[in-house]
């Protein structure tokens, strides 16, 4: 949202950064123990390269239903508190924070808190094993910088990522390790249940500025249904080599409404509404050798979505996402190197929205108003990370989204040509973890293209690089 530049805080980027360092230097590390660490008695690095990226053992922990270790309560009393908290405080600098309001001609700020310290966001987790076969986590997040109805920033809380599992293991006579790990999951974000960090929900970047402008177009599987749907799935992992999963996603209503608690379900466009149960698949080949671990896989989904979440009497648009992904990890003491990539191909069939748009000039309710009956959208992401002693890390990432030109979805350029959804750029991130529960990170996102163009992408003189974002963040989990 745009506000006048006079509203911008006057704290400088450098002074804000120094304050953050000093403030978090006072935290007592002895109290910083997330609930799964308390459950297993192990340190974070057993399961995480650095949170949230999982090690092979962390993947096994998740696939076996988060059940390794103790229950929080037993006949002996409370073993540990099954709660954890997470919070972030950051400073964001947008390269060119001034832009021109197309309606008034006034100079306004893009990022309302440029160079100022913001606390966003904070989460509480209920995370624990229930018994030897059932476990999971529920995340509840308070966002201090949510956009309110009048366009200003305000507080908002709601459910965040959630994954509940029932899991088991089967070993044949004389087996040296489990032949089968199998389970069922209920969750609320496609790929949040996945154990490799090449898929969207837990893919890089693991956190970004809560204030910066971000590209408008993304595939549906890449966060478009997060905390809006109920996912019901079953999976098997055979000899720690072949993974297969089938899940189905439906609108998180009725008995599943807790999975989208806090979402604006009464506003048109507030959430996604899906028709029936929409299939998702995931197959992966995984192999560990020496200190190396590799995975190649595919995942995807077919979703029939109502253009307006308030009107489920209409036909639906279909989104078909097919993705490939890969991950490599080399984990030793003190050197750790990891890399992930994914490519998502989305076909958007506007079977409901296009005919209505053609006839009326507008979509159904707040739904899309495409100029084409079908569109394509492709996303590619790749990143490589090095950590020394699990303390000092650096990541280099590339991202690219390309797709069909569609004036209805993306507008027209100054020459009247339909624009594309294209955005691309690089991310450089430096991380320092003084203890495993605290990450001090500096992230820089540099755009080559933003919402369809390198220059003048908004028709108002703004260039892609103007949205380059420096983000200094302190991320604490305890």
């Amino acid at each position, binding site marked *: 949202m745009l506000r006048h530049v006079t509203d911008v805080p006057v704290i400088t980027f450098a002074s804000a950064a120094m304050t953050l360092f000093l403030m978090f230097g006072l935290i007592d590390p002895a109290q910083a123990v997330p609930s799964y660490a308390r459950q297993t008695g192990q340190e974070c*690095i057993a399961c995480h390269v650095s949170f949230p990226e999982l090690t092979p053992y962390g993947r096994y922990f998740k696939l076996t239903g988060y059940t390794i270790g103790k229950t929080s309560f037993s006949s002996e009393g409370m073993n540990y508190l099954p709660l954890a908290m997470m919070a972030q405080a950051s400073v964001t600098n947008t390269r060119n924070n001034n832009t021109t309001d197309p309606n008034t001609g006034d100079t306004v700020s893009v990022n309302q808190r440029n160079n100022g310290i913001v606390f966003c966001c904070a989460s509480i987790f209920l995370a624990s094993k229930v018994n030897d076969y059932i476990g999971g986590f529920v995340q509840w997040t308070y966002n201090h910088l949510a956009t309110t109805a009048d366009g200003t920033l305000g507080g908002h809380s709601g459910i965040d990522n959630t994954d509940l599992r029932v899991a088991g293991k089967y070993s044949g006579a004389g087996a040296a390790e489990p032949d089968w790990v199998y389970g069922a999951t209920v969750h609320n974000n496609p790929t949040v249940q996945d154990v490799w960090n090449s898929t969207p929900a837990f893919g890089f970047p693991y956190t970004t500025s809560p204030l910066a402008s971000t590209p408008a177009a993304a595939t549906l599987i890449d966060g478009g249904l997060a905390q809006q749907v109920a996912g019901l799935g079953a999976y098997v992992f055979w000899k720690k080599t072949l993974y297969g999963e089938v899940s189905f996603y439906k609108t998180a209503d009725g008995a599943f409404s807790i999975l989208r608690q806090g979402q604006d379900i009464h506003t048109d466009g507030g959430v996604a509404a899906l028709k029936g149960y929409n299939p998702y698949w995931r197959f992966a080949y995984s192999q560990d050798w020496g200190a190396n671990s590799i995975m190649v896989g595919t995942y995807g989904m077919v979703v029939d979505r109502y253009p307006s979440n308030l009107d489920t009497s209409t036909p639906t648009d279909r989104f078909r996402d097919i993705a490939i992904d890969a991950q490599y990890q080399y984990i030793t*003491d003190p050197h750790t190197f990891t890399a992930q990539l994914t490519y998502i191909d989305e076909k958007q069939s506007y079977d409901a929205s296009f005919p209505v748009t053609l006839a009326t000039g507008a979509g159904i309710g707040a739904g899309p108003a495409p100029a084409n009956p079908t569109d394509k959208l492709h996303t590619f992401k790749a990143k490589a990370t090095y950590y020394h002693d699990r303390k000092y890390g650096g990541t280099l990432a590339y991202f690219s989204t390309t797709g069909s030109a569609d004036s209805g979805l993306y507008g027209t350029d100054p020459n009247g040509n339909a624009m594309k959804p294209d955005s691309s750029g690089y991310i450089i991130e430096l991380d320092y973890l003084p203890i495993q529960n605290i990450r001090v990170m500096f992230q820089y996102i540099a755009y080559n293209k933003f919402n369809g163009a390198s220059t003048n992408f908004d028709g108002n003189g703004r260039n892609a690089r103007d949205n380059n974002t420096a983000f200094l963040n302190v991320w604490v989990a305890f």
Partner: protein
Amino acid sequence: MTRKYVVLAVILLAGAITPVSAQNTAADIQKAAEEKAVNLCSTCHGPRGISTSPEFPILAAQRKGYLEAQIDAFRKKARAEKDAHDFMWGIAGNLDEAIIGGIAAYYAAQPPAPGRTDDPKLVAKGKELFDKGLPERGIPACKACHGDDAKGTADFPRLAGQHAKYVAKQLNYIQSLVRAAPVMHGIIKDLTPPEMQAVAAYVQSK
């Protein structure tokens, strides 16, 4: 209606899993211990105790008494190097003595890992040190306790086939008193890092 299906599904899934029976007999205890080894220990220490990552020690064919003593040391937090603290305290803390004995017996009975040679010259240097020690510096031969070809003896651990990186790391921990092993500390306190690398390469080769 949907709520009923969800509840039914959870009941069916939970019911399909047979609870662990009471562990009374020695056979039951051994079975429970082996299930623990197969389903949990193998995640890091590999199938049958032969890990592929040099960050995690090979357990196959290790001396039973030594394994029991080490797991117990993790459980009691007496062994306190960083890896022990980060990975093993929590795991061992959930084990009782009977299960520890069963796990130790399981790994002691497994076939040993084959030897692996990366640098023959380094291995030759390590063999010299392992077999003869360094009398001029008062360092006795390693094989006096760890046996011919590093296969271990009744009271001392097997080193043959162990990851060289792990052996060198432990030597360093013991020398710097991070890992409490008074006898070993006295013996290796004057070993240089290259000598540790050499002897580690040798035992890995056996």
